[in-house]
């Protein structure tokens, strides 16, 4: 019997959470150790999955199917393709680094890690679900722990507001998409939620045109699509570091990915019809996000808006419905996920020591925190799309895809590159170089070794992918081929 790796990946964080919940509150070190072990376990499994995925055979692999409610056609149907495998790896990486970064949480680490792992389970579940009902099930599981994590452990000033706003937005988005999913279920006539079967459903063009937009936009809310992105910057800022890493690094990818899986793959005609609109919205994301990021004085807000901009690139790539664009989008999900996780980790380390995130108030951090500085610079270069790093490898095909569809959009979107360069370099200079303000003297303690491990892992991944695109791009390409087949070779 083959090892049910996907179920284990999904449920191991849950098991970890349950174990942690049962531990006494004052055994903080043991709790952290259990958390770390769970995270390492998930990371190892996701890495193994990544390395074992057969890129030549492509298609859905590691399939598991357990009947859950046959009368309704609901089954726990799991499988990964070329697009979701890197995302599973991404989740494992972010989970691992997130646990490391959260080592210092003193207030109720037990509940923190339990909720974090609940979130992780939900995320894993969405990436590997091939059953529409289960996809929603896991999707919602990934939403409510965010509320608790942000409201309880977040930044005191805005956490309650940001947590509620985030939860409401995400919940609304997901239930809008849910209605679409139910409509698909009833309309298909197959009486099943199995996505592989629904892919063959051949819904009428009118049906698809009506339902594509609610489904796509409903999920894309979590991807931060303009104008429904407003929850994201506040959510990022208010969340504790590991949660921000998860939020920007993985959760937003969840939205884009679900929009792809459910929207584009199940309603291809609708996708083709509405693609121009999505293209425009995504372009607004890219350009507007960059401009707003430029005027921020809070480092975390800057990164938050930069995430909005970069997720715009993902959705731009999807909206082109071309092989290049979609492959780039798939790679961008991974690249940006790692990059933003690194950014938030770095900002978190700075904030823990300096107790401010205001760029004008910071300075001279490079001397005291060289690892943070160097890896932040690497992240910054990725953010700019600097060749040699994963950002370029991801963004270039997206632009190529845009050229094939609407050339003038490419011209607009490319503006964001120079804007990003400007604000990132300025931020780097102000935060890391120059004079360290007097009040920080002696407070900026060096980071621990495990922090260095986390930062090093994240930056190493981005450099590796940038220099050797072959380690991921072909895999994503194979997944995209399947999507394009559904689109009718468009």
């Amino acid at each position, binding site marked *: 019997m083959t090892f049910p790796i996907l179920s284990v990946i999904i449920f191991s964080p849950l098991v970890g959470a349950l174990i942690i*919940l049962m531990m006494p*509150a004052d055994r903080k070190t043991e709790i952290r150790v259990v958390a770390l072990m769970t995270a390492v376990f998930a990371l190892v499994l996701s890495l193994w999955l990544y390395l074992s995925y057969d890129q030549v055979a492509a298609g859905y692999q590691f399939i598991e199917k357990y*009947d*859950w*409610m*046959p*009368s*309704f056609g*609901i089954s726990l149907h799991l499988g990964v393709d070329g697009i979701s495998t890197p995302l599973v790896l991404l989740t494992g990486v972010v989970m691992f680094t997130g646990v490391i970064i959260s080592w210092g949480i003193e207030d*109720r680490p037990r*509940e923190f890690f339990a909720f974090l792992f609940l979130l992780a389970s939900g995320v894993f579940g969405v990436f590997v679900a091939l059953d529409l*009902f289960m996809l*929603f*099930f*896991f999707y*919602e*599981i990934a*939403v*409510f722990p965010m*509320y*608790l994590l942000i*409201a*309880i452990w977040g930044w005191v000033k805005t*956490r*309650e507001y940001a*947590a*509620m706003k985030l*939860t*409401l937005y995400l*919940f*609304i988005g997901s*239930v*809008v998409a*849910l*209605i679409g999913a*139910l*409509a698909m*279920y*009833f309309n298909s006539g197959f009486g099943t939620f199995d996505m592989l079967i629904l892919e063959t459903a051949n819904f009428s063009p009118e049906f698809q045109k009506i339902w594509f937009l609610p489904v796509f936009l409903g999920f894309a809310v979590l991807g931060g699509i303009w104008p429904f992105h407003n929850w994201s910057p506040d959510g990022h800022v208010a969340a504790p570091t590991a949660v921000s890493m998860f939020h920007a690094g993985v959760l937003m990818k969840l939205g884009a990915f679900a929009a792809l899986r459910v929207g584009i793959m199940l309603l291809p005609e609708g996708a083709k019809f509405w693609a121009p609109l999505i293209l425009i919205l995504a372009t607004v994301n890219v350009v507007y996000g960059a401009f707003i990021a430029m005027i921020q004085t809070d480092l975390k807000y800057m990164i938050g808006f930069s995430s909005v901009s970069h997720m715009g690139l993902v959705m731009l790539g999807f909206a082109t419905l071309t092989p290049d664009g979609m492959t780039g989008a798939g790679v961008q999900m991974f690249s940006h996920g790692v990059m933003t996780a690194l950014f938030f980790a770095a900002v978190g380390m700075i904030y823990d020591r300096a107790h401010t995130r205001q760029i004008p108030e910071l300075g001279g951090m490079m001397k005291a925190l060289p690892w943070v500085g160097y890896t932040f610079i690497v992240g910054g270069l990725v953010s700019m799309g600097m060749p040699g790093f994963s950002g370029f490898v991801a963004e270039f095909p997206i632009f190529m895809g845009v050229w094939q569809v609407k050339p003038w959009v490419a011209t607009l979107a490319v503006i964001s590159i120079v804007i990003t360069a400007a604000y990132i370099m300025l931020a780097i200079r102000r935060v890391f170089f120059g004079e360290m303000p007097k009040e920080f003297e002696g407070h900026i303690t060096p980071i621990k070794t495990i922090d260095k491990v986390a930062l090093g892992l994240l930056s190493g991944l981005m450099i590796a992918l940038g220099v050797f695109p072959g380690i991921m791009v072909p895999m994503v390409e194979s997944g995209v081929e399947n999507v394009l087949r559904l689109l009718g070779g468009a």
Partner: protein
Amino acid sequence: MFTSSMIMAILPELLLLTLGLLVLVFDLIWKKRDGRDLGWLTAGGLLFILVLSAFLAKPATSMEVFGGMLRYDMLGYVFKMLFIFGAMITSLFMMDSEKLGNRGESYILLLVATIGMNLMASAADLVMLYLAIETTSIPMYILAGFLRDDKKSTEAGLKYLLFGAMASTVMLYGFSLIFGFTGTTALAAITGFSLPLAIGVIILIMVGVAFKISLAPFHFWAPDVYEGAPTPITGFLSTASKAAGFAVLMRLFLGLFPLGSEYALMWTMIMAVLATVTMTLGNVVALSQTNIKRMLAYSSVAHAGYALVGVVSLSELGVGSVTFYLIAYVMTNLAAFGVIAAFSKIVGSDEISDYAGMSRRNYGLGLAALVAFLSLTGMPPFGGFVAKVFVFAAAVKADMIWLAVVGILNSIVGLYYYLTFLKVVYLHRMEGENEEAHPIPLSRPYAIALAVLSFAILFIGVIFGPWFNIASSAAQGLF
């Protein structure tokens, strides 16, 4: 004379009656005891009844017994099990309440009410139905006002009595009209109404049913009664009693106006509008509540609205989804009220702001609250999620997408106030932040009950297949 199926049909009720007598005897003869003994007896007895009935009283087919008074089918069976389970949990909650737990009367009244609910769920005749409703209601009136020294409780009991009496009178009038125009009181035989009569009958009967289910605009009694009644009773009232009302609703109207009849559309629209108003009203007013019991009262009103959405679709899926919804809802709301009962027993307050830091004062209670309230919101992996999805699915299937949308919008409002409560429990701190010094000890019956409920909510939410199949089989009985 008495066939085995007839015995089986009323087996739970017979057992309940026996248990009630047992409690009465115990209460009389065994004076010196720990106040909990009766409670354990009741709970244990109910558990025994539940298990026994589950195996023995399961109907093979649908049939009418006792000369058409009762209907012995899956719908009745499922609901009966639900009521018995609810009563069991309630008796666990009642145990530690000083005024309630010590007295045999409260348990007996609980058991009688349960009998009444069972009969409500399986009534096939209007007279039987009315009897059953009264058998349920009167003990509940008393239980609501049980705390004689508490002004609020007395007010609750009295208000409930007056509202209830009036509602059932109106309903009875409706029944009498039906009898007058069709010459029979058997539910199955009632057909062939002319339009004005149909409307009139619907309105009259709905008054009674809507009162029971606390549908708008007949929900006004709910907040005061829920707030005033002893919390375990509120729990029972808001769950089992409401579920019984739904059973009646489904039987009655699907019997009177089956799918395809001329009035089906009209009554569907009425239901839909009622559901909309109920959901919206319940949710919106809940937003401004500062008392948790009142908030949950309005939330219960809203949930009745959600469940009604499923009825609207007039299909097997619809009835099945309502049944499942009720199963999940009973578990969830009982858990919610259980948490409140446990809390107010120690702290003595029902104000939401007093719940600040509750999660630190009792870790398990905080988790139970989390489970219960997230299930109320409709979040996976809890039962509330699946329940909502299926209810909305029923609406979508019946091409009433707007209704599903309304339901969803309402869920969002609900999300807000449920999460706000959880925020108070988990985020807010007590004055002085010394929660460790003010723990909330959880007594054994509460711990057992909450643990069972939490597990059940999770179980129904994750392994929902078999449970929905049970609900569907209940629904089949009506078509």
